[in-house]
């Protein structure tokens, strides 16, 4: 029998992991992205490198994703 409160807490933790990291990544990308677009207005050849720099903060949300996947698919089943 799965403990309902425990399962709920795991699911909630997974939600927090993905949403907070997503939020954080978006703040980071906002800053870098607007600067990158500024550079692209000057030099269109910057697109590739601009894209690279813009998506660097995205690793945060990827970590969050991995954490929540592990919570949902490893931690949650191990409760029961």
């Amino acid at each position, binding site marked *: 029998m799965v403990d309902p409160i425990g399962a709920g807490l795991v699911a909630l933790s997974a939600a927090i992991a993905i949403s907070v990291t997503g939020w954080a990544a978006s703040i980071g990308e906002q800053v870098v992205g607007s600067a990158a677009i500024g550079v692209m207005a000057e030099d269109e050849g910057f*697109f590739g490198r601009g*894209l690279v720099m813009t998506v660097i903060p995205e690793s945060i949300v990827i970590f969050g994703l991995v954490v929540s*996947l592990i919570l*949902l698919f490893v931690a949650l089943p191990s409760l029961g």
Partner: protein
Amino acid sequence: MFEPQAMTKVIIAGSKDYMGIAIDAMYKRDVVHIADFADEDEDFKIGKPYARVSQLSERAISLRSIASYLSIKGKEDIPNKYSERAIIDTIDEKTQRLDFEVTQVTDNISEIESRIKDINDKKRLLEPLKSFDLPLNLYRGYRSLAVFVGTLKGSPTISDITNDYEVETVPYGRGQAIALFVPKNFEDDVLKRLQEQSYAALPLPEMEGTPRDILVDLDAKLTELASEKHKSEEELADLRQQYIEFILASDEYLSIETQKAEAPLRFATTKNAFIVEGWVPTNDLELVQRDMDDATNGHVIVAVDKSGDADVDKVPIALSNPMPSRPLEVLVKAFSLPKYNEIDPTTFMVFWYPFLFGLMLGDIGYGVVVIALAILVSRRIKSQSIRALATVGLYAGVFSIIFGFIFNEFFGAELFGHKGLLTFVYEYPAIPRLDNVLTLLVVTLMIGVIMLTFGFVLGFINEYRQHGLKHAVYTKVSWICMLWGGVLAIALILPPLTTGSGIQLSAGLVAGLAVALVGFVLLIVGEGVVGIVELPGLLSNVLSYSRLLSIGISSTGIGLAINRLSEALFFSKGGVFIIFGVLLLIVGHAVNTALGILDSGLQALRLHYVEFFTKFYNGGGIKYEPFGFSRKYTEEQ
């Protein structure tokens, strides 16, 4: 295929008397990439452009202004090429005549337009008064009467000022149009009252007759003017039809002549000689030498400059890939052109890009849509780079379908098997994504490890060629060791950690840790302590590939939600609701396809640019731009 086209540095030199002929010869062959001369000193000066430049640009300006009046954009197709000789003979006379004719017609059109505007203004003023049926001359010229004609909110309430008035009102817009006649001595009071009701006077045009009759007249005039304007526009269209070939061809001719006349600005010259530094694709070298010999009777020489080989940064880059991988060049160029001694990653992207895209989209239905869109775009759109992207889309669509079969997905639903849409078809062991999240997570991370290793191997080759074996081992083998040692160690540590049993110190674990340590030491030796800063990057690079799974299941999830919603809300009710259900399916899946293409496309690109390219690719090459012109509208004589 794996490298940019081979280039040879050449020095073209000769007497100034032959400079014009040499320019023509180079221009015609269209292969010499001129390196602009910039370092002037006492002996060598930057060349002077030919005097005919100013005349050429004057002609070009008048021609382009005519072209813009005739809305010729310069991209139109014409059936036959124009001979250059014919242009040279007639350009001045024809341009002058054309200028005269076009100006006449456009002046005429703008005059008609101003008259139309004038009439429309008058109509706007008279429109409110047309139901009053009072000739215009009765609104003015009284000695004892004040007249208010205008618009007002509500009806005029002036009975407390005087009862001695005449008023006509008619609903107009949100309020009323009024014509109010009061004795002159009440004028100020009445005006004040009216202004409280947002009175706006209508300035009446100086015309005779009732507004109704005048309006009929004006309308007749408008029709007449419109047909006149139409006639002039037809004249303009006739002119366009008649001269479009001449204009396009002459514009091209002038561009070519201007480029040729300005070419000496890129040369080094002395009092009597000129020298051009440049690059020629090695395959075309003999061709250029022969051209120059023939044209100048050996008076201008094309010599190979061996000293240029050392300076790889300055070699212009022309990518040379076989036909199937050429479309991917657009994506490489969007990042940066390779340096001359760097591997051109285009060929590898032919596999990896569609593979990653297909893995994310992974749906037979969406894959078919992607292919259909790609074919449609390449049929309809002429732009080279967009067509290239469409071809990339075609490859990506094929991979999406392949993965669609593996995941058994068709517009978010199962296609084959006892729960699928086609129950009668053999049920093969598919891997539905939503049921195999953890397995697929491991698979995507392993794809990441393989792709990164491949990147490091390419990086090893680059480093080896640029800086030698030792450097290549320090900077690339170190990372490969840490990557694989780390993967092995984590693979052995993680399972016992999750199940809660203790970690066994097995031979594999020791080996993994040892390999990782060797890599770490190599890195420290090669790059110093600074190298440690980059270590977490390797972990995030690998984890980054988990997006292959997450993008995939989110697209599947949305597709599934659309199907379930349309079933629960509409199809289950039957009757007319089925139409709504179909509508929801079409709109929902269209949106999901668009999201899927955009997201999978960008994320696959990102995995290349950020994770893959950074392991071996610096870029920063100069684009190969040969001195010449690919003629579209003219032909030489």
